[in-house]
């Protein structure tokens, strides 16, 4: 059984084309700005047979066109890698394009198999500076960077995603250091800057969790432009979502 939090049938911001996005339950990070805090705990979610997700994808397949497909997001999909492998294999048999949206914090044998079956890994790098990464996620970023390296050496396409949070992840020196670190990656196809938003705040209230970023403002257009310019010094394809 796969623990599913929810679905979005018209995903247009999580990989190329139109995608069925499956949000899975459970995450190894606790990002301060998480927009879906209800997906963090591993308790909960709807235990779902792989076959049901597979049928959903088949049903929606005419909408995928040439570029679209299915995206596993979360939560952190790699936490359920073992359960997902057979589903990924079936989806590949049907030539359905697969993206995995991951923080890269787990890389075991199952995850490696899972990544090898996927077409694009949407790799969320929260911060390049390890201390600031820790402040945001309660984890360091060492494993995420190792995972990126593993993807690169195994020729698996990467879209790097970066959530821009004023005062937490918008430091010029960190962004430039990140760019320096990744500039030689051949598999890094695209950078996506995700504006920080507060749409998830009401969930914190209903979960009785404190929201620690309540004083942080949403990005201004200028801030987003500036970040885009920084990334664009190093990479050809940089989008603000």
């Amino acid at each position, binding site marked *: 059984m796969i623990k599913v939090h929810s679905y979005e049938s*018209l995903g247009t911001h999580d990989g190329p084309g139109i995608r069925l996005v499956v949000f899975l339950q459970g995450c190894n990070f606790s990002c301060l700005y998480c927009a879906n805090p209800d997906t963090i705990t591993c308790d909960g979610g709807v235990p779902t047979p792989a076959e049901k997700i597979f049928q959903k994808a088949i049903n*929606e397949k005419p909408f995928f066109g040439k570029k679209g497909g299915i995206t596993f997001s979360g939560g952190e999909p790699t936490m359920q890698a073992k359960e997902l492998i057979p589903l990924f294999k079936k989806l590949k048999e049907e030539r359905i394009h697969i993206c995995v949206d991951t923080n890269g914090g787990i890389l075991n044998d199952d995850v490696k198999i899972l990544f090898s079956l996927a077409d694009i890994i949407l790799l969320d790098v929260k911060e390049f500076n390890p201390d600031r990464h820790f402040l945001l996620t309660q984890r360091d970023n060492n494993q995420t960077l190792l995972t990126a390296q593993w993807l690169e050496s195994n020729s698996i396409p990467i879209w790097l995603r970066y959530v821009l949070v004023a005062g937490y992840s918008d430091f010029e020196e960190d962004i430039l250091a990140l760019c320096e670190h990744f500039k030689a990656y051949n598999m890094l196809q695209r950078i996506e800057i995700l504006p920080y938003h507060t749409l998830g705040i009401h969930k914190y209230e209903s979960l009785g969790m404190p929201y620690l970023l309540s004083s942080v403002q949403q990005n201004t257009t200028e801030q987003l432009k500036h970040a885009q310019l920084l990334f664009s010094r190093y990479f050809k394809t940089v989008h603000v979502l």
Partner: protein
Amino acid sequence: MELTKIFKAGLWSKEINVTDFVKSNLTPYTGDASFLVRATAKTKRLWDLCLQAIAEEHARNGVRSLDNKTISTITSHKAGYINREDELIVGLQTDELLKRAIKPFGGINVVVKACSENGVEIDEKVKDFFTHYRKTHNDGVFDAYTDEIRSFRSLGFITGLPDNYARGRIIGDYRRLALYGIDRLITAKQEDLKKLTGPMTDARIRLREEVAEQIKALRDIKIMGEYYELDLSRPAYTAQEAVQWVYMAYLAAVKEQDGAAMSLGNVSSFLDIYIENDLAEGKIDETFAQELIDQFVMKLRLVRHLRMQSYNDIFAGDPTWVTEALGGCFNDGRTKVTKTTFRFLQTLYNLGPAPEPNLTVLWSTELPEGFKKFCAKVSVDTSSIQYENDELMREVRSSDDYGIACCVSYQDLGRQIQFFGARANLAKALLLAINGGRCENTGKLMVKDIPILTDETLTYETVMANYKKVLLEIAHIYNEAMNIIHYMHDKYYYEKAQMAFIDTDPQINLAYGVAGLSIAVDSLSAIKYAKVKAVRNALGLTERFEINGEFPCFGNDDNRVDKLAVDLIYFFNEELKKLPVYKNASPTLSVLTITSNVMYGQKTGATPDGRDKGVSFAPGANPMHGRDKSGAIASLLSVAKIRYRDSQDGISNTFSIVPKSLGVTSEDRIENLVTMLDGYFTKGAHHLNVNVLNREMLEDAIESPEKYPQLTVRVSGYAVNFVNLSRVHQLEVIARSFHTTM
């Protein structure tokens, strides 16, 4: 001059057969939109005058001026111009821009009221003549209506019927005038008339009289042409003449008739043949070709009819449904997309967005990619066009040369017509089933022998058994009303100008319809999957419902409820098909509300799905606002399940999405919309209105309408100028589901 010297000969040169002409001479275009050009200075000058007149119309409460004396006929008004020297395509309905005319054959009281609502009294002589000497359609219908029909109509079970306005929906094959000229068309009709010999049954006599009327109309059209110094007796030889001739044929129709929907058909591919020929011969260039289409479309945007204010309840925003079907494929696999198909869409840039003509793309996954992308771009930029499933309609209905009547209805051009019949209220009908056959608002007994429900909690089987009985009775009364209406319309307000461009004995579809599908189905789902208790007043009538537990709603790709919708449509359509029909028409059904979803909602009490009394329904086949919670695709998948075979008059779905949710970049949005349309229609869906808008912009347009004179929104099979909607309709559009993703 012989047209066969210009064009490839075929069956069309021996008989009246435009389809054959188009198939033999069409040049499909598989490229992109890069060849298109902007409006010329002439076009811009004309359109500026029109915009000024439209602003005046808006300022004068929707009617710029009104001729209260002259009964509008094909020849009633002399030539009218906007600014003659700039006009490549001439012709107005009256002698002045946006001046509305009276057409009392549909009903004198309607016209009297429409005049007085606009501060003008109708000419006494006209009133006297149509009151004492000449009977109208409206009088005929009410003479024949039964008491039952009257009460089902007035209480809101069957409403919006074309009994006090003209039925419309007949599409003349206006291309015939250009290809053959009046003289040849008269000869053909005279030959038909000769062959209509005895025995002189009712049907035969009627048909002979109709053909004689058509011949008179053709003669009148020639005279109308003379007013504009055009010799319509002969075919059109050039592109400019072809556009002009087609427009003259259409103009005759909208001078004589004020049917709710006066659709155009499928003229772009036909006109392209003439344009391609002139381009090839070096007579014209692309600028002139676009100028012709811009000016033709401009004229189509100026069509007006005089309406009563109450008409706005069922058809909001002063629509005329000048529906033009664009694109699609032939049955042999060739695309019908031409450069002129693009040119029609380009008018939305050259003249700005507008609801009319009602541009309808016949979508097929086989359409050229360049065309698909241009359509999607136009949708993203203007929210002015709609889409229908070409492959599905050709498969089920067979002809590959068809137009769309009104909003969504297939009509084989020149060989088929349609009798329009509004709709029955499925949600209110369900309340009859729960109230022992009595109207929930008035207590009036509508359907006899419906058992009174005594259980505290409604049981699905009992309600469903009652519901089926109710629907049988409604089908029966609805059928009677339709037969009376169309009998009388033929008798008192026959569409001789349109029928002159249609085969003499065409196949006829009788277009029934339903409203409130998602409300009825969600109510049945609530009764079936949750516990629903009816709260009744002292008279035992339901006032509201208490729902305990969860139930699936239509619009979430959940078969438990979606199947209820499929089955309900199947059941009602099958019952309608069993009943005898005037002129042996074939019954069809639509799931389409136009904008009457608001009015139907007002007339319907609280429903078991939790909807309060008076709340608007969702339009057409749409899931109820806000209940399609599983994302846009799931919503589309639910609607796609309703079988076109059971609902051949069309299944309308109006889809609104926030631009950003369609994709990150503008290229992504275009590509994703193309993919979405491919997916939706591959799933067997029939129709989709596409709005790409932000709700905030609509809210701003309510506050500051002057900022949005041309803001166009698709509502239900047609588009409206948003600022022309009443406040209640504006709010309903805003309340609809806007699909967003985060």
